[in-house]
């Protein structure tokens, strides 16, 4: 209630379909906006790119995880066999062929774990409380509506112009995003 009075933390524009959103995002980025984010009920090709998103950290993390895993797996087997050398059925002490399998398994385990942790960390998840949830109709963002939220502290943000721009970009309606109880930290 009290929040109504506060200056809005940003503007939330609702779009009826994905193409509109995609277009809007692209134009917004072209016209120099940086601190904005698009929300959609399903992944849309090129949307993030339209916002100027470019990163391959996850692939890197996975790769590292895989290497660490494989090293751990193989190292563990070699180490334990040297630590207490035991003759097992006359097999070689360090039996590479036999060690391959566990090496592979641990590689997979570490790679996948790293991959998913990286995804969550980079996305700053879990994040149960977020100002966008204050937007009136945001609940539809997981159903069939598409949202574009411009942060108030974007360099080019201007309540009137931005609203106008969003309208021009085909937003079916533009509502102010109420300020958060704690200051909004922008998306990276």
């Amino acid at each position, binding site marked *: 209630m009290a929040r109504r009075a506060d200056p809005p933390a940003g503007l939330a524009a609702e779009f009826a379909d994905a193409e509109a959103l995609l277009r809007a995002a692209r134009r917004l980025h072209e016209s120099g906006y940086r601190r904005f984010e698009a929300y959609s009920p399903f992944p849309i090709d090129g949307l993030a790119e339209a916002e100027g998103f470019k990163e391959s950290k996850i692939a890197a993390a996975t790769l590292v995880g895989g290497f660490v895993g494989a090293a751990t797996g193989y190292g563990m087997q070699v180490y334990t066999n040297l630590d207490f050398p035991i003759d097992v059925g006359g*097999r070689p002490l360090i039996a590479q062929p036999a060690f391959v399998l566990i090496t592979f398994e641990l590689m997979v385990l570490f790679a996948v774990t790293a991959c998913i942790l990286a995804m969550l960390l980079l996305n700053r998840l879990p994040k149960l409380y977020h100002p966008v949830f204050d937007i009136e109709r945001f609940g539809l963002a*997981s159903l069939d509506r598409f949202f574009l939220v411009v942060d108030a502290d974007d360099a080019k943000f201007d309540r009137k112009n931005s609203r106008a721009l969003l309208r021009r970009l085909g937003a079916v309606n533009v509502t102010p995003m109420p300020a958060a109880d704690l200051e909004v930290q922008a998306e990276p």
Partner: protein
Amino acid sequence: MASQDAALDADYRHVTREVTRIPLAFPHKRTWWIAFLAALTLLGLYLVSAGVTFAVGIGAWGNDIPVNWGIAISNYIWWIGIGHAGTLISAMLLLMRQRWRNSLNRFAEAMTLFAVVCGGLYPIIHLGRPWFFYWMAPYPATMGVWPQFKSPLTWDFFAVLTYLTVSAMFWYVGIIPDLAATRDRAKRHSAQVFFGVLALGWRGAARHWARWRQAYRTCAAIAVPLVISVHSEISMIFAAGPEPGWMSTVFPPYFVLGAAFSGFAVVAMIATVTRRAFGLQDLITEKHLDMLGRLTLATGMMTAYGYFADVFGALYGGGRYELHTLHERFFGEVAWAYWGAVILNFVPLQLLWLRRWRVAPVALFLVGLSCTIGMWCERYMLLVSTLYRDYLVSSWGHFWPSFWEWTLFFGSIGLWLTLFLLFVRILPMISAFEIKEATFEEEEAAEASRG
């Protein structure tokens, strides 16, 4: 244009509502409770049987020397095998951009997860001294002894552990967006909190989606070889030993294909049932049944080839003991299992050559059931036919599973059912957002073509 959008929106809405209504406002609760209680009863049976085994020892089973592995191990292989279909469907088909998989992957993966749980518990229960099972894990023990990493069992220990963890993570990551959707549909606060926490505060931001996709695709790419490695290693439990009928190079692919086969059969069964039970005809369409039928048929025929290769190998190799084991499989005490496997696996399967049968839910279900049972027979046959009469005539024996072995087996089905029923009850069992994505992209494509 606008009308199209409207249509699309309606489409999206419909999909999500269809999917989320089930956990939020569960239809025909009564039937569910009946099924659930039945499952719980079986689960109880499971616990009792395991308890008895722990209390008195493996002697409670029918095992003996020479057949010191019995139903426990064959079930282990059977369960894990079934699990493989889920991962294949969701991972491999995802990579191949087979959009139709979106209606199936969610519960297929859940099925995988629970099957692996059921399978993974068996090797522990079957131990002579289960309270020491952790000796298979490498940890700094005061006795300074480590696990024996040249043993196929140790390989399995790691394989199954990895498989379980990876499938669980893959499954969960895939479900997050729909959890968010359910959260947003929820009316009751408790439900909102429940799904809210599970959804980790997912809000569908473009960058999140981007990263999510990267991660999901990567995991999928890794999961495929993982699946293949897992059942290859399980086949090593047999293939690494010197026993006639086991020591065969065809086993790894043979096991993997068999696994996929049984898995697809089970997925087909689940698909037909849930489709009917929750009226999801327009999410799980005839197309899906058709595809499932094809997959089952394809892997089934490959498995058949495995059978052939196995027999051919023995005959061509001409090893005395190999031939003898082959003879035992054809005409011995467990011939019922061999012919049971051959008939149940491959005879009804031939129906699936015709689309008419593939898209007929009842037919598909029955074929799936027959294949599932058939593969159980195969696992049993492979294990017993070799062990009960291996090399020395003097050590030839018999194997008759005991009451407790059977109850443990049926109990494990109860365990699976319990978990799966809980899943369909409280989680969105179909991937709504992926269907939406698919529809959108199809729409895009359509438009592009319209120019």
